[in-house]
């Protein structure tokens, strides 16, 4: 066990866990950020994606000890009021079905837009190719990313 400090969505929080515990389970079980999902536990599906210092990371394979003191953003922190252009675009394109994969999709897509405000289809494939949506919402996801990039969230 170790005393660590996580800065989640701007809030500094102390946790006492083994440093090799995946960040995913610390977020979900210890801190209550259940928007971040478990899908595979081995970096295959993207459901657990969060930002660490603005970069998309798979929290299921990120030992919490490696992010001590770092800034972490989860889906709950993407915006305070669903106002992120991607969230708006996701609603406009009616993307989610079951919705389980969408937190991860949104976190990877938002990291992409931060880096590349006008992504191409190939950029989208690169950024989201590691994600799985069993409901098959990929076509709408692609449309929604382009819509957000074009400032057409609404």
């Amino acid at each position, binding site marked *: 066990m170790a005393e660590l400090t996580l800065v989640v969505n701007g809030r500094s929080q102390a946790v006492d866990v083994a440093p090799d515990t995946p960040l995913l389970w610390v977020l979900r079980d210890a801190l209550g950020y259940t928007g971040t999902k478990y899908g595979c536990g081995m970096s295959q599906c993207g459901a657990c994606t969060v930002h660490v210092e603005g970069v998309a990371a798979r929290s299921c394979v990120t030992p919490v000890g490696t992010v001590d003191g770092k800034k972490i953003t989860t889906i*709950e922190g993407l915006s305070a009021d669903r106002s992120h252009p991607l969230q708006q675009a996701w609603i406009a394109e009616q*993307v989610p079905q*079951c919705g389980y994969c969408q937190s991860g999709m949104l976190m990877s897509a938002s990291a992409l837009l931060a880096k590349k405000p006008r992504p191409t289809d190939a950029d989208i494939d690169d950024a989201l190719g590691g994600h799985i949506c069993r409901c098959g919402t990929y076509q*709408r996801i692609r449309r929604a990313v382009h819509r957000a990039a074009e400032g057409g969230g609404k």
Partner: protein
Amino acid sequence: MTTRRAFLKTGAAGGAALVVGFRFSIDALAQEAQEKKKPSPFDAWIHIDKSGTVTLITAKSEMGQGALTAMPMILAEELEVDWNGVRVEQAPTDPSIYDHGTGGSGSVAGSWLPLRQAGAAAREMLVRAAATAWNVEPATCRAEKGFIVHGPRRRRLAYGELVEAASKLPIPDFNKVPLKNPDDFHIVGQSIARTDIPSKVDGSARFGIDVRVPGLLYAVVARCPTFGGKAARFDATKAKAIAGVRHVLEIPAVGAGAHTAGGIAVVADSTWAAMQGRQALQIDWDHGPHASESSQTLRQASETIAAQPGKVVRNEGDAAATLVGAEQKVDAVYELPFQAHATMEPMNCTVDIRADRAEAWSPTQAPDWTRSAIAQVTGLPPPSINVHTTLMGGGFGRRYQADFVVEAAQVGKAVGAPVQLLWTREDDMRHDFYRPFAYHRLSGAVDAKGNAVAWHHRIVSTSIRSFWDPPDRVKPEASEIGGAVDLAYAVPNLRVEYAPVPSGVPVAWWRSVEASLNAFVVEGFIDELAAAAKADPLAFRQRLLAEPRMIKQPPDSESALDTRRFKGVLDLAAAKAGWGSPLPAGRGRGIACAFSFDSYVAEVAEVSVDKAGLPHVHRVVCAVDCGRAVNPDGVRAQVESAVVYGLSAALKGAITIAGGRAEQSNFHDFEVMRIQEMPVVEVHLVASTERPTGIGEPGLPPAAPAVANAIFAATGKRLRRLPILRV
């Protein structure tokens, strides 16, 4: 269509309110059972209170299929209120009041007429209450936007003002209550934004796995990897040494009804600690009676079985004799592997079991089964068990089962604290109830004029009903022959047979059930006959559908296939896809059509194969006839989804068996479609005034055969075994 009895019950919910309860009927068997017991449970209730708030309380659950948006649309239409003026509430699980269960693509299809009738009945009662208050003829009053309006005198009363009087009126007969003229629909048929979506973009949507209650413990179970095996002995010393691990206990397998594997449960303060504890267990497995089963042995056994006649499920003319003297004979063997559901949210259930009551949070398609499963494990009377149906991260048929509920109840009862039992992805892949393995043998004949004259189809599969039915009442073919026995194409000499192949692998309902297996075979083989006849695959099909027929097969089936509608979607898909127009070099087009859940879907796939032999699907054009589309964008989304699910099974993952166990364990070896492989999917709806029919599943069956037929068109290679990893 609705054979259900109509019910209205007034003033039940305390205080003055108009309360209407009613049943949906999608299943004649369930209906019959219902007729015998009283009081009859209702599927849904409409509740209108004094403030005029309309609430639809329904036992159907939301899996992302949009049912909880489409259902209030239908109600609002008949009740003449704004669509967003209807609140939807998930019913508490109480089988004496509600009929639960979400599946069979039935939520909207089954509720269409009852919802309309119930809405119209409530509207009539409000009209009569207003007419009485004004002392005028009801015929001079009408409902409009939450008010009853008296035309001649231009006065109006809000629904809320009328509920008290209305609730005391006699109940109109559902079968006589006047329904709206569909030409006046202004909500049904509009694409309306799904109500569950906003919570799914900000992390606030709560799935089963997200349930958090004070003092919650987390559990995982080590199950024998071999189907039917169990722990011979285990040592928990090391597991208990892991920080956070609280309990290690053995839970027994539960057979018929739930089919759990049993195993060793590890309960801890966090999910991760439980997983670590499980890894530290030392277990000697007794691998049980199926340890030598493999995909290889299953294929061999199926081959042997398919060499003998099976049970004849359809027989017209004389297929055998026609085949003997045939101008051209085509023989083929098709094979499909087990498929995992692989819902994104793995199975889980949270329970809090006390001495005298229990509470459960379950992402389930069958809440009443959840309750009875908990009652069975705990011995608690069902009324003392409160089940909350949570959002589900995908269902696809997997969440009809109660195995994960039984395990949670076993563990929860033993530890006496709230427990969330979670399956890891590995558990999910290795202990699914898979889509059956199937092996089909076909012979067909084409005469000198290019007509299909004989069709002999022998189906062998690991039967779902053999796995689930009580041994004295098994009807092995019951969930295996749809989409084959009701062959839409007119072939004068037609014989379809079925035989089960024994297996220890658990099987059950996978999105679209047998339709996805049989469509691959039937639509592939009809393409083979077209090729033998040197005919265009579309024209060949159209000719066999030229004479309109209604096909009701097996004869006791509740659905009938209308070949006009079947041909209608084929024609539409072909037109929208530009069938016959030139394609870029190396690309081929394939077409396939299927009837399932009373809906018709045809798909045209455009595919190319690269130098390495990898197939690429560029475009899938779908034509859909699901009757009247209540929420057209919702229908399109479901079809897009089903196509992707079908393509995953066609081109990516399979469950193979070795040593009596599944060889796959996670998404690295059970691959599924990803965004970079996603074709353009276009969905075209047939404008229809027929009643709405299923839409969650029917888009799936044509996907695989359309792709295989396109590969044939592009390369000349006929592929009869799924998945097609390489051409």
